[in-house]
């Protein structure tokens, strides 16, 4: 099962004291409710596919990102999308990476990382997935997240000289 393999591989990213045990679904739900109040700690969660639509959910630190994505690349995942979420109350920006497989052995993996709203810098994964290029440019223009090492980080959908980030919650047209 690719799900088990990926889970084990991703688990290695988290040192034992920090990573909570891989929680079961019931605990995951609890985690969810808590997440509204407090920021979620880095770690790996197994989600109920029937409710959430994906299996593995790993929150990593920005410097662990490349490692995690490399793991998925080796397991032949394809990149679905990259997007951001503006958690304005927690003063954080979240970058979400979706991965899936061209396979009947279904496994959807979500990698997420959180950065401070004032200094949103995340390493680029274009070196691993060439297709991340546009996704990262889009996330950059919508949220102002800088992808360090990106070859061509200019606005993609907005005009070339756009300097606003419309999907931030404090954006006013």
């Amino acid at each position: 099962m690719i799900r088990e393999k990926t889970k084990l591989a991703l688990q290695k990213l988290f040192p034992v004291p920090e990573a909570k045990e891989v929680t079961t679904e019931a605990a995951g739900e609890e985690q969810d409710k808590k997440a509204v109040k407090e920021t979620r700690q880095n770690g790996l969660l197994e989600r109920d596919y029937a409710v959430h639509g994906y299996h593995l959910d790993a929150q990593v630190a920005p410097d662990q990102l490349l490692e995690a994505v490399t793991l998925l690349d080796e397991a032949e995942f394809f990149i679905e999308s990259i997007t951001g979420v503006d958690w304005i109350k927690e003063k954080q920006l979240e970058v979400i990476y979706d991965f899936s497989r061209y396979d009947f052995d279904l496994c959807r993996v979500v990698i997420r990382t959180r950065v401070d709203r004032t200094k949103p810098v995340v390493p680029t994964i274009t070196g691993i997935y060439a297709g991340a290029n546009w996704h990262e440019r889009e996330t950059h223009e919508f949220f102002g997240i800088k992808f360090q090492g990106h070859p061509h980080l200019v606005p993609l959908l907005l005009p070339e000289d756009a300097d606003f980030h419309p999907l931030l919650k404090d954006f006013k047209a």
Partner: protein
Amino acid sequence: MNSPILLQPDETFILNVGPQHPATHGVLRVKMEMSGEYIVEAETVIGYIHRMHEKMGELKTYPQFLMNLSRMDYLGALGYSHGHVLLIEKASGIEVPERAEYIRAIMVELNRVASHLFWFGAFVMDLGGFSPLMYALQDREHILDMLEGVTGSRLTYCYFRFGGLYNDVDDDFISAARRFIPRMRKSLKKYHALVTGNIIFRKRLEGIAPLSQEMCRKYGASSAVARGSGINFDVRKNEPYSVYPEFDFDVPVFHECDSLARYNVRMEEIEQSLRIIEQGLDKLPDGPIMPEKKPKLIKPPPGDYYQAVETARGSFGIRLVSDGGKTPYRLKLRSPTYSNMHLFDEACRGMMIMDALAFMGSLDLVIPEIDR
């Protein structure tokens, strides 16, 4: 036949293809660095029809956003709406009656046939043949008639509701759909005789723009782009949703990796969609089309939800981050053509402009869907 020549970097010029160019099917611009007729470097510039669907998703309530999905991709609108309603139903735990799901599947497949027909015509027009467009659009009009009778509009349907449908199908629709299937099969035969068998057509597509499986994976390609490269990937089969497991249909996969393979996949998909429609009409159960108990106000519990569906253009993903409010906290639309088009920059290097534009046609672009 079309081996790239040795390019002298100092002999190039920049050619702006688009935003108004007959081959780009809308407002797409490709900045091409050309050496004669060969492309050295291409940079796709998108966003000329960026209409902030995602921002509107955050500002509108859940039912208000239904209309946006059909304006995102106007050719295969119902497939996108399907993804949206499935996601919200999953997130807020709404049960959907079986009849509604069957009707949804039938409608989505009809819409897929219509979309593929339009693509077929436009693609052949890119190659310089005009008449197939007319034939394809004539067949498409029959589908639009049927859909219009039930959904009330020709292109931008707002037919699906959370939990069910806006309108039940009537006997007219069912008999029209049954009549349509043999007619479409006959037309398909005609198209194969007129276009697929044409020597000029084949020569223009065979061996052009090979896309490796590795490349598809790195860019996240789906639909005919992936299936033309020998990847057996169809969300309807790989990640079954709705009532698709009930249907018996095949996923066409071709291993040639070229433009002709992509063409063949889509033509074969029309036939498979017809099979689904046929089975759907046979199996269509009686019953209500809206659930009996449905929350008045849709407020999915806080959390993160994802739903992927197979639309006419490939794997469409929609992500909802909810904070429990009346409007989504974040709604991300993952459009399939966005990833498919992204391939173009890398794949068209060293091609001649005419092949590159034929290749662009084989990607089945709908620009508002890329730009969202």
